[in-house]
């Protein structure tokens, strides 16, 4: 690891100011950034920690649904969202291991937008709103491809607001080594329709499976998607599974998520 400076502001304004400096880099849970720095693949001048900002912490019900501060660790979401949004809490409780869940944060996860991360599927599948220091961004506009988001220079995620569906579930198929999602599907049934968001599978990062959403909006059962096929084009192919395998997983896991939805 190369040398760096470290600052831990206590307000969003201070954080934004600190991040405007040359070579500054936001640090939330550090579950991706720190290993990258240890391998000397990243060398920020200053790390600006976002975990000391009170208004970016915690889980509570509010206008528009469940508000989760961006710097809230997965373990806290797993515990505190359980009563309000069990499918989201279960997703948070299934990320990584206890050490990861007590350091990693929801904001860090969706700002990084790793194509195999779990959280993007919940945010997109719930039609959540990503709140930043500047604006509110609909999930459908926020995710823009692998490791790419709508965030602009100097913009940080401060919270995420999740509408609460009638029923939802997340089903993940583990990559055998890393236990990231080889493919993960988040299904949420709202009064006005069903959303299906898929992570881990596509070269374009998290995406919505429109055909399944239509079929499930008409009939929320696993058999409703039995006749659908998933195009393997554009799916990720690697050591752990071909594009065709991932396409198969998308369909299998969607059916299982529908059956598991509570």
């Amino acid at each position: 690891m190369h040398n760096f400076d470290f600052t831990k502001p206590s307000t969003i304004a201070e954080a934004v100011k600190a991040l405007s400096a040359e070579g500054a880099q936001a640090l939330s849970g550090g579950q991706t950034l720190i290993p990258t720095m240890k391998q000397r693949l990243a060398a920020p001048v200053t790390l600006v920690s976002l975990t000391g900002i009170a208004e970016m912490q915690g889980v509570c019900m509010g206008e528009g649904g469940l508000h989760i501060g961006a710097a809230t660790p997965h373990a806290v979401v797993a515990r505190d969202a359980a009563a309000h949004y069990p499918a989201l809490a279960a997703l948070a409780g299934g990320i990584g291991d206890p050490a990861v869940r007590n350091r990693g944060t929801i904001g860090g996860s969706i700002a990084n937008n790793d194509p195999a991360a779990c959280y993007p599927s919940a945010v997109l599948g719930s039609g959540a709103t990503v709140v930043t220091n500047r604006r509110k961004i609909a999930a459908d506009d926020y995710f823009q491809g692998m490791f790419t988001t709508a965030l602009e220079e100097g913009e940080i995620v401060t919270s995420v607001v999740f509408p609460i569906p009638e029923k939802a579930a997340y089903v993940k198929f583990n990559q055998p080594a890393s236990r990231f999602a080889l493919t993960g599907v988040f299904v949420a049934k709202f009064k006005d329709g069903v959303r299906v968001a898929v992570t881990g599978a596509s070269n374009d990062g998290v995406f919505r499976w429109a055909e399944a959403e239509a079929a499930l909006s008409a009939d929320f059962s696993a058999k409703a998607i039995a006749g659908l096929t998933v195009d393997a084009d554009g799916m990720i192919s690697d050591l752990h599974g071909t594009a065709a395998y991932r396409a198969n997983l998308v369909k299998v896991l969607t059916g299982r998520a529908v059956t598991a939805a509570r």
Partner: protein
Amino acid sequence: MPKDTGIGASSKRREDVRFLTGKGLYTDDVSLHAQAHAVMVRSTVAHGRIVRIDTSAAAAMPGVLAVFTGEDFAAVGGNPAGWLINSRDGTPMREPKRPVLAHGKVRHVGDAYAAVIAETYQQAKDAAEQLAADTEIEELPAIVDMKAAVADAGNRVHDEIPDNLCFDWGWIEDNRAAVDAAMKAAPHVVTLELVNNRLVPNAMEPRASIGEYNPGTGDYKLTTTSQNPHLTRLLVAAFVMGIPENKLTVVAPDVGGGFGSKIYHYGEEALVLAAAKKLGRPVRWTAERTESFLSDAHGRDHVTKIELGCTKEGEILAIRTETLANVGAYLSNFSTATPTFLHGTLMAGPYKVPHVYVNVKAVFTNTAPVDAYRGAGRPEATYSLERVIDKMCRELNLDPFEVRRKNLLTPDQFPYTTPVGLVYDTGNYQATLDKAIELGNVAGFEKRAAESKARGKLRGMGLSTWIEACGIAPSHLVGVLGSRVGLYDAATVRVNATGNISVMTGAHSHGQGHETVFAQIVAERLGIPESSVEIVHGDTSKIPFGMGSYGSRSLAVCGSAMNKAVDKIIAKGKKIAAHMLEAAEEDISFADGKFSVAGTDKAKTFGEIAFSAYVPHNYPLETLEPGLEETAFYDPGNFTYPAGAYICEVEVDPDTGKVDVVAFTAADDFGNVMNPMIVEGQVHGGVGQGIGQALCENTSYDENGQLLTGSFMDYAMPRADDVPFYTVDHSCSTPCTHNPLGVKGCGEAGAIGTPPAVVNAVIDALHRGGMTHVTHIDMPVSPHRVWQAING
């Protein structure tokens, strides 16, 4: 009633107190005054010619004390291969020099070609980055695939070896024609091509070494992660550095797992010694995890075609194999023995097979060196054999249990000389098979399969009946077969004046629990508490010259040496007691810690005799030396032959291809068992590694020789939820006939017997689910591969 102390008791592992409370002392925990830090500069290309290394900028960087390149070691020796193999035509194997640092060419990703020594680790890292930037390497085409390597005479890992072939070995060459004839005459021949997947050992503790040099005495000290400190000393002193052995002390303190990978001498050990001498300061190096992936000796990596000739009723008539064995870029110390004498000699399994012939071609590639890894050659033999027998059962519609029973050797056939050169001394393979069938509740399988089916899962059952040769090894035999070392071991039993005991062993414990088990044996034999016995190992300045721990040898070989030393202690104690008790020596008996005169109540305790030996006031000094300390060397008369029957049950999810091992039964014959709890733990660990090989672990190089699975993000280690609760039994014991403890060894068993049981179970599940087109899936049987096979 189970014993609570001594031989056969499940004494708690005394070493765990320090391991579990963070009080162990591993190499990286050793911190020395004025120590400097070494960082290796490793090749990022698989194959290349070193055009230029400009060290000037790196050498001028802050804190940098020295820079080494391959040039600095051009004059010293290479790291030798420990075993000479001759090819079928009688020519000796090709044996390229393995230098301390790569010189002229780099031959695999991770091949170290330079090292930087600096005041701090980060300064050394900075300078290593600079050095890498100032190095020009002309990249050459990488040689990765073994079949391509032997076919391409133009592209060479070592310029002097035209076909990348180390040797072409036939075992037993004289039997080849007879085996061919038997195969031709067989009513049915089963053929199977399979891959024994390359594994990265992944010991929890990475390799680490610290070199020290005292200019005042000329003494060197190497603290290092080794399974065999004396063997390491011999290699680094005599073969590489040219240091007299008596000027080098090697200490292997607590070592966090080896699985074979820490048997070998590595270049970093020579490097830290050379650097310490040059600087007059201690120099330390600890591998980062990435370096472990790139530069530890890997395991397995065979491509095999096996043919089995049999009757229609499943009687095995002949076995013939052709194997390509990857040795990587250089020969590691045991890399030539592993695919030959630890593999070919086991190809008859526990069966009466009249004709067996094994051909192994060892191939150089631009990958990390491959050497012995838990089981070493024997897992490869067992996997080939148990998979092809399973295939035979499917082709001929025979019951796999009955086919095994029909072919297994029977107890009346021992000692049994196999057609591949071993003499099995004893065993009862039917007994372990019956025990596994009972404990695995084979009778209830159909009911369990129906329950699985109701949940949408395919349940399958797989069997393997395995044997290994361990307790390595009889020196005269391995000498004939090409070994360049002896494989005896040694122990010193030192009775202290107050009656407690220090035992110095050549065996090295790096997780096995020697400190507990060896003490149990000495305590039992001398009739004293276990707590009165201390085991000392790992320091060449303290222990006798033993060969260390690998090949399930510690108890069978070093334990036998220790037992012999105890015999000598008792014999001398009898002489002392005879004097003190004024009786004839032949009238003295020793039992329960007392030397007694037969037919009287006259006796002396062991403690009284010990005290007398060191305070010899009433002592036969004219005929007997004072003191009570004995050393014994023990060279085994034969290998030992643990064997067993493993039954694995899996559930396959047909939609995703995911395999879950839901039950695993291991019935083993380890001979006499010294500590059942530790034996069970060894089996658990071995089975876990076997499941890891079968389902998860894969070492994948791309066509350019880049390691795709170079971290735990892509290299799948088995985790707790990948393995079931095991059913483990070792009650079917036939004690080894040729060592005094009657022990056979248990460390490698699980890793040997497990992989075929798992894969056989997966194939069984698919067949029961109607997917009879699937005859084989190569390991690791990952979800993706199973799904592809189902949908193939």
